[in-house]
């Protein structure tokens, strides 16, 4: 699969996971790495940083049930809008592929 396409999927997946629950970087990398062929952890990390730079996510320090302090990510309103946009594109693409019968 084309690397730009993979990056788009990773971007959507990251926004979706962060939107469902506030989570930290290692958890996100762990859940995604190995699932998309040829997608290395450093690339996922770079995309995660870009999402933060673009204002789609924001970070805060937090702990869960007495664990260590970690940098957590949460979705911003701009991130929600971006996720909606990506999901619509993905849905259109999926329908087109299905129609072709690939």
């Amino acid at each position: 699969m084309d690397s730009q396409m993979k990056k788009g999927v990773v971007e959507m997946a990251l926004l979706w996971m962060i939107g469902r629950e506030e989570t930290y970087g290692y958890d996100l990398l762990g859940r995604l790495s190995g699932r998309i062929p040829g997608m290395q952890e450093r690339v996922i990390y770079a995309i995660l940083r870009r999402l933060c730079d673009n204002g789609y996510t924001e970070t805060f320090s937090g702990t869960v049930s007495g664990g260590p302090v970690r940098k957590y990510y949460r979705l911003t309103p701009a991130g929600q809008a971006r996720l909606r946009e990506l999901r619509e594109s993905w849905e259109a693409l999926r329908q087109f592929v299905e129609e072709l019968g690939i």
Partner: protein
Amino acid sequence: MDRERFLAQLERKLLWHFSGARTREVVADYRDYFEQGKADGRTEQELCEACGMPGEIVRSLLEEERGKCIPPMAVFCLWCAAVLCFALPLPCVREGTAWLTLLLPLGGLYLRREMPISPVPPPVRRAYVLGTLLSAMLTGMAVQWLSAAAGGEAAWGVPPQECGPKLSLLLTAARLMAAFFWIAGEARLRGTRVQWPLSFLLAGIIEASVGLDLLLHRLDTPAGFLSGALPTVLLPLAVGLVLCIAAAIDRKRVDAWTAR
């Protein structure tokens, strides 16, 4: 490779492209990654392999910056700097001191380490900077040629021994402006604010070099040295010295600012 070596190498490579603050942020993220990975039962070796080489991490981060455009102000500033470099300080050309203006690009190289990230990937940036310099150099040469054609050769080609205090002052101002424009251009290119101490330091080094060179050329003419030549020699040296001291003092403030 063990964790500390990996992180040290990553930090070194990041500093070539990113600000101190951003570098620390990325290194801290990777430190967390190692700690959490270790708690998860993975070895340092495994984690290093999963990350890839530090250079690859930097490349991935830079790739995500792709697509952002070059700020026009940066190109304008670099262009002005180059025109000033190539067109104005040429009274020194007969004595072979014009090459000293090449210190400006060297200063630019130094800034690569000191100033924050450029918003565009290095190949695009290099192409723009080289294009800017080339067009400015041609403009500078055209200015000289037009000046000579209009009978102004005496003004542009005067040797340093004959530079009066006024011309010397004008040239010092031109070199200071060139240094300022260069730093401003670099700052715009990197999406950060102008770092004055660096601008001063660069201008100071150039002024001190020009002053020293003129002084060496005057050693055989003590009479000329005393009759009106004194300010020509001492002015650039004095300005250079003062600016270098100012930069040395202010540098601490810059370090404090980047350490935040």
